[in-house]
């Protein structure tokens, strides 16, 4: 798996999403819970807007000085016995990780949740190289068993219900109990425990690395990341190159913003910071620690008008606020990064060719921008993408381009514009019945397929205004 999921067209994916009543019910109720939780958690803090501003400043400062902080992070990790590898591409990252496993003669890999490893297609690469890879985040494990991609960046199996999960467990793991969540979770726990105990490699993602100390911070609710990082002798952490903070103080701010924005919690059950290997005299920690820092297109975003997209802390608040996501679901985006941030990031990381519809999958309602804890102007980035698609990529439909050329002429010519205000009612008359249009011509059809179009007013504003002024004068 890589950034792109599936080969169906955007229209097809959307149709499938809209038809999937169960998924829509699940997404809608989850969005409701996440949104009210986020708002409550933000309110508790009292001065949420100040926190957002602080979060934005920290992210901005970090990106402006990314080279410095990456160097500092790398130095600190090395100092504490770890190895650091900068991977420019997904292939480089996967190759490095494969080699580490090979050298350790590793057979079984346990993983905690990580979007960047989805992005680089790590599981597939490792499996092809002969490793057994087990996802240990419950949602990710369900998806792995079902060979289904994530539909949400925080709760990846959001689109599945307990009955579907029971069926998956039964088909793939011989589960024979009910679809009670407690029973399902207990079964997963028992199954995964065996994997934890027999694994020789642990792979984690990284919520934030702390540059000043070289610590890697993992934010989870299930505790699986603790087992992934404490049982196997070798730990490999994979992080996007933007996922770091300068100091512990900054970490506190961003973790607060993250957990409150993601799930409406003050803190998640586990916030774990791990620093390097087990040094002499220490009782725990891995024998070997590798930090793989993945570029995979990120450095191309630095210094562009899209730089703030790298500020993202992967909380999914924008996804949970997005009404388009609610109706079409995560898989409709055709990217492992769905929702508003996905529509911004995916074309940046994976190009426009396969993703040119994503920037238009938004009404620009700005619910995403309002929800973002680090103030990424998501809807503005979507407009920027549209400009690039029109002007640089030349991927806009011909009819649209013609219409917009016409718009420029109309909008800059008061006479032509005035004529349209006069003629609209007459022009639409053939389709008008009872002061409304139910079957509009041409591009109006897309509108009237779902809703009526009103007939323009009988008397135009301009003629009313003119007659009124004449009245004043007389």
């Amino acid at each position: 798996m890589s950034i792109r999921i599936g080969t169906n067209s955007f229209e097809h994916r959307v149709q499938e999403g809209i038809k999937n009543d169960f998924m829509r019910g699940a997404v809608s109720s989850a969005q409701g819970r996440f949104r009210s939780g986020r708002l409550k958690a933000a309110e508790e803090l009292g001065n949420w807007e100040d926190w957002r501003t602080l979060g934005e400043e920290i992210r901005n400062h970090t990106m402006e000085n990314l080279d410095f902080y990456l160097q500092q992070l790398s130095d600190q990790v090395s100092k504490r016995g770890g190895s650091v590898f900068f991977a420019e591409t997904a292939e480089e990252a996967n190759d490095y990780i494969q080699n580490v496993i090979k050298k350790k003669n590793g057979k079984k890999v346990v993983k905690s949740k990580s979007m960047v490893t989805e992005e680089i297609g790590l599981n597939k690469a490792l499996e092809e190289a002969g490793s057994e890879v087990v996802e240990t985040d419950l949602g990710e494990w369900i998806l792995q068993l079902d060979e289904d991609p994530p539909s949400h960046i925080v709760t990846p199996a959001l689109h599945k219900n307990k009955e579907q999960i029971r069926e998956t467990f039964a088909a793939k793991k011989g589960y024979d109990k009910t679809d009670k969540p407690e029973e399902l979770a207990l079964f997963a726990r028992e199954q995964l425990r065996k994997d934890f105990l027999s694994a020789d490699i642990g792979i984690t993602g990284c919520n934030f690395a702390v540059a000043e100390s070289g610590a890697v911070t993992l934010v989870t609710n299930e505790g699986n990341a603790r087992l992934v990082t404490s049982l196997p002798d070798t730990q490999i952490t994979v992080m996007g190159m933007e996922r770091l903070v300068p100091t512990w103080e900054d970490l506190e701010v961003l973790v607060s913003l993250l957990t409150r924005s993601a799930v409406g919690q003050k803190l998640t059950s586990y916030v774990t910071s791990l620093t390097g290997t087990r040094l002499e005299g220490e009782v725990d920690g891995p024998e070997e620690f590798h930090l793989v820092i993945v570029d995979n297109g990120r450095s191309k975003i630095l210094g562009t008008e899209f730089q703030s997209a790298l500020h993202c802390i992967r909380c999914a608040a924008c996804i949970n606020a997005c009404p388009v996501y609610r109706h079409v679901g995560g898989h409709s985006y055709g990217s492992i990064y769905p929702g508003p941030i996905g529509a911004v990031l995916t074309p940046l990381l994976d190009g426009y060719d396969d993703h040119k519809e994503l920037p238009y999958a938004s009404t620009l309602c700005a619910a995403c921008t309002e929800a973002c804890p680090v103030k990424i102007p998501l809807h503005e980035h979507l407009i920027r993408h549209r400009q690039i698609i029109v002007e640089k990529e030349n991927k806009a439909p011909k009819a649209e381009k013609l219409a917009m050329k016409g718009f420029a002429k109309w909008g800059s010519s008061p006479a032509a514009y005035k004529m349209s205000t006069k003629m609209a009612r007459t022009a639409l008359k053939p389709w008008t019945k009872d002061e409304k249009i139910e079957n509009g011509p041409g591009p109006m059809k897309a509108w009237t397929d779902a809703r009526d179009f009103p007939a323009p007013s009988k008397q135009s504003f301009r003629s009313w205004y003119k007659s009124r002024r004449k009245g004043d004068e007389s």
Partner: protein
Amino acid sequence: MKASLFITCLCDIMSSDVGKDTVEVLEKVGCEVDFPELQTCCGQPAYNSGYLKESKESMKQMMRAFKDSEYVVGPSGSCVAMLHEYPHIFKGDPEWEEAANDLAGKSYELTQFLVDVMGITDVGSKFQGRVTYHPSCHMTRLLGVRDAPMTLLENVKGLEFVALPVKEDCCGFGGTFSVKNPVISEQMVEEKTEHVTETGAEYLVGGDMGCLMNIGGRLTRNGKPVKVLHIANILNYQ
């Protein structure tokens, strides 16, 4: 106080009553209202679709049309929010930067102008009926106008107000979105009209004609009896 009406292209072409009511409300509260006839469209349909060059042609016409105005007042949060973007769009343009700053600085949405500039909370209108209100996305999130419409509605005599559930959710209009992604737009407007119907309101009121055409069109298509009114209609009702 002198106010120039920015009618918005949608009201200019489709809904003259909103323009008339805006003029009359402004006059009622003591403004001298003029209508600069050279005005066209704020440019948003092209700008939001990615056609920057084309949108600027229309924007320049707007700056020419309103250059002598003291205040510019429009019955749309979305179109006024677009005018407020001009300074970003024309930043560094020696010919237009100043005009862009000037227009943005003197432009207000109708309720925002009444409450924040004129200091009026009661325009003296009367309206009998059960009313719910859809706060349009650009009015609230981009222009930051949340309280003004509510303040004015609260003081309309006879009006019974009922809150719209999940009111902050987009109605699915999104300008060209409604025809570019009609399938998604339909789902969104359906959800919005379900919420409107749930309230039991006789009237749905809003401050943006685009959203109202979208929601209203879906309501009539589904045979729902809820009537749609612009807030200017209510504020000028006796």
